[in-house]
């Protein structure tokens, strides 16, 4: 990662900037959302592989700042939602795409399914990722 940041710095013109955009790890709320209400129904926890990736990214940026390759100018946080029509579709997706990074406990799945079953007809299931975006100026 540090090598990639060094290469990016080389490719940037003087005064250029790097936009670092990524989800932050931890525990993400799973919500049942309809037009009328939003209910938190469980949480999805990041597995060690995902945590390690987050830490490595933070370390790489810290290293780049320490070497005076980049200076942090601005950093903001925002929610990013993935929506599925049903808990089953969500479970299928997580098992297929995120099995190495994310886990939802069976007790949480039970609660998600129960919450969705009695929710409004337009209710969908969503997971809320916490996103970070930062602008780093080339030094």
């Amino acid at each position, binding site marked *: 990662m540090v090598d990639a940041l060094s290469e990016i710095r080389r490719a*940037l013109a003087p005064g250029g900037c790097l936009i670092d955009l990524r989800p932050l790890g931890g525990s993400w709320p799973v919500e049942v959302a309809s037009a009328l209400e939003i209910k938190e129904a469980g949480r999805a926890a990041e597995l060690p592989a995902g945590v390690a990736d987050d830490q490595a990214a933070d370390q790489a940026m810290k290293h780049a700042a320490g070497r005076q390759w980049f200076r942090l100018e601005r950093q903001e946080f925002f929610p990013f939602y993935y929506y599925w029509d049903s808990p089953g579709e969500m479970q299928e997706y997580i098992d297929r795409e995120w099995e190495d990074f994310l886990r939802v406990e069976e007790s949480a799945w039970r609660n998600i399914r129960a919450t969705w079953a009695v929710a409004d007809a337009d209710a969908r299931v969503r997971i809320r990722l916490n996103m970070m975006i930062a602008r780093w100026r080339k030094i």
Partner: protein
Amino acid sequence: MTLQKDPERTETKYLHRLADFAGRRVLEVGCGDGRITWQYARGARSVAGIDLDANDLRLATIDRPSDLESTVTFGRADSVHLPFAGQNFDIAVLAWSF
């Protein structure tokens, strides 16, 4: 299966809040299938997206609108060996790629 990613387009809003892409030369490292690229490419002077995944790059190229063919290019490359001369870009985007 109906999966929707960020239908609120919050990501796009924040991307444009932090960077002015108009007239800029942009390098996107880890562009994948171009999902992020299409959020800022229109208006940029040029965009070079790189990724290691050939299938994602194929999808990005298929999805590229015809009016962006001359300004947006995709290529297979490793982020630690960028196939570009130095000081070639105004903005680098590293999105979901660490």
